[in-house]
């Protein structure tokens, strides 16, 4: 994701795929990022649908809930990182768990974690910060 894409309204908006099983949270995060940061956010309710959407859209960022029924966020990360067509897309994990194993997070290939409950107004800057930290 380029810095220009984050800041200038005349360029393509940041494209995000959000994979989150909770419908209420999915909607509020989608609308917050769309309205608040002018990002283009597409959503999926589970891992398999999310992976298919990521492969189809090749977004700038993927946001993945860690704990979902069926395929969890770690497995989504593993599959995206191991696929050459999606391996370079930054992934940020969303989780309500406070006691994550940092080594497991790092090994998943995700750029970082945002812990719920999160400040909706600060969500887009936090995502950008995590994605940029890794590039340094």
């Amino acid at each position, binding site marked *: 994701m380029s810095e220009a894409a984050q800041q200038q309204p005349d360029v393509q908006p940041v494209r995000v795929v959000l994979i989150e099983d909770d419908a209420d*949270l999915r909607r509020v995060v989608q609308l917050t990022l769309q309205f608040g940061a002018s990002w283009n956010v597409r959503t999926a309710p589970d891992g398999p649908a999310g992976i298919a959407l990521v492969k189809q859209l090749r977004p700038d960022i993927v946001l993945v809930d860690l704990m979902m029924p069926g395929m969890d966020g770690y497995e989504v990360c593993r599959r995206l990182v191991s696929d050459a067509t999606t391996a370079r897309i930054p992934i940020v994990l969303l989780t309500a768990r406070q006691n994550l194993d940092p080594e497991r997070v790092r090994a998943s290939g995700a750029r970082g974690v945002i812990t719920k409950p999160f400040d909706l107004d600060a969500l887009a800057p936090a995502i950008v910060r995590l994605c940029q930290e890794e590039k340094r």
Partner: protein
Amino acid sequence: MIATKQLPVEVLQELANEFAAGLGARAAVMLEAIDEISRQRSADAAHRLRLTAHSLAGTASAFGASELVPHASRLESLGKEWQERNGAATKASIVVARRALESLTVSIDVVIERLRTR
């Protein structure tokens, strides 16, 4: 620094109303899971309880319903404990779960009333 705007109040209210409307169903899923485990060992029911409670704990604060979080977190912990015991639960832990769910239900009523009259 990225510029952000807040969601309009009416949009937030609509989202909060939808969240409130779904709270009863979330509680019903948890009650059903506890009932099932009280009858027989069920790792699947423990998993449902854990996931439903976890989801609520992670979502409630986004809608200003943070008083639900401790009760949901307690239920999530019990679901995790039962899941790790292959769906087996002691009678004492089932009593604790029912109390936590009762407390959650009371808090849900308060949240629904507050969100509707906001």
